[in-house]
C-alpha cells in the first residue's frame, strides 16, 4: 500500500489546481468547477486520514462536505443564471456594480 503522505501530496496538488482555476479563469461556471476540485481535494485528505486513524469520522465528514457541495452548486448555479440574464456574460469582472 501507498503511505499516507502520497495521498496528502496528491490532495495538496489538486487543491492548488483548484485555487489556480478560481484565480485565473474568467468564466463563472469554471470558477464553480474549480471550487468543486478544491472540495474534493479536502475530501481525499479526510478519507485518507480517517483510514490512517482507523475511524469512520473521515468518511462522515466527506459525506457532509458532499451535501454542502450540492447545496453550494444549486445556489451558485442559480446565481449564475440570474446574473447571466442581467448582463449576458459570465465574466466575473463584469459584475462590479453594487446595485442595478
Amino acid at each position, binding site marked *: 500500500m501507498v*503511505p499516507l503522505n502520497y495521498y496528502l*501530496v496528491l490532495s495538496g496538488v489538486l487543491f492548488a489546481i483548484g485555487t489556480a482555476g478560481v484565480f485565473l479563469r474568467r468564466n463563472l*461556471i*469554471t470558477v464553480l*468547477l474549480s471550487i468543486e476540485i478544491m472540495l474534493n481535494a479536502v475530501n481525499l485528505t479526510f478519507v485518507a486520514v480517517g483510514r490512517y486513524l*482507523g475511524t469512520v469520522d473521515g*468518511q462522515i465528514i466527506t459525506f457532509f462536505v458532499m451535501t454542502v457541495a450540492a447545496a453550494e452548486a444549486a445556489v451558485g448555479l442559480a*446565481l449564475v*443564471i440570474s446574473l447571466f440574464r442581467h448582463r449576458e456574460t459570465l465574466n466575473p469582472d463584469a459584475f462590479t456594480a453594487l446595485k442595478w
Partner: protein
Amino acid sequence: MDVIAFYIFAAIAVVASVLVVGQKNPMHSVMLLITSFGALAGLYVLLDAPFTAVTQIIIYAGAIMVLFLFVVMLLNVPREEPAPPAVSALLGPTGIRIGVILSLLLGAEIVWALSRIGLGWFPQDPAAASVSSVALIGASLFTRHAFAFEATSVLILVAMIGAVVLARREH
C-alpha cells in the same frame, strides 16, 4: 498492485483537473471534472472506503455535475472572453510569474514538511480496515453526528428555496 492503481488514479485526477482549469469550453470542463471524480472514487476504494466511493459517483458525478451540464446547455456560452488589458502590473504577466514562484515555493514547503514527519503507513489490522463497513458509518451518522445530519437537511431546504427564488424569472 495497489501502488500501480494509486499512480494511475492519481495521474488521471491531476491531468483531468489541470485540463478542467485549462479548457476554454465549459462543456469539456464539466466532462473532464467527472473523469477526475471517477479517479478520486477509485482512490477511495483503495482507501477501503467503498461507500464513500459510490456516494462520490452518485452525488458528485450523478447529481451535481448534471446540474452544471444543464446550466451550460441552458446558457450556451461556449467560449470565454479574452483577457482584459492589465490594470496594474500585478495583474499582468509579471503578476502571474510572481504567483507561479509563490505557489512553487508553497509546494516545496509542503513536500519538505511532509518528508520531515516520515512516511505514515496505513495500519493493516482488520480493526483499522473496518472503516469500510457501511453499518458502522450509518450507526455513527445517526448517533454521534445526528445533530449535524439534521442540520444538513435544513441547509438543503434553504438551498432549495434559495435556488428557486434566485433563478425565477421576474415578472
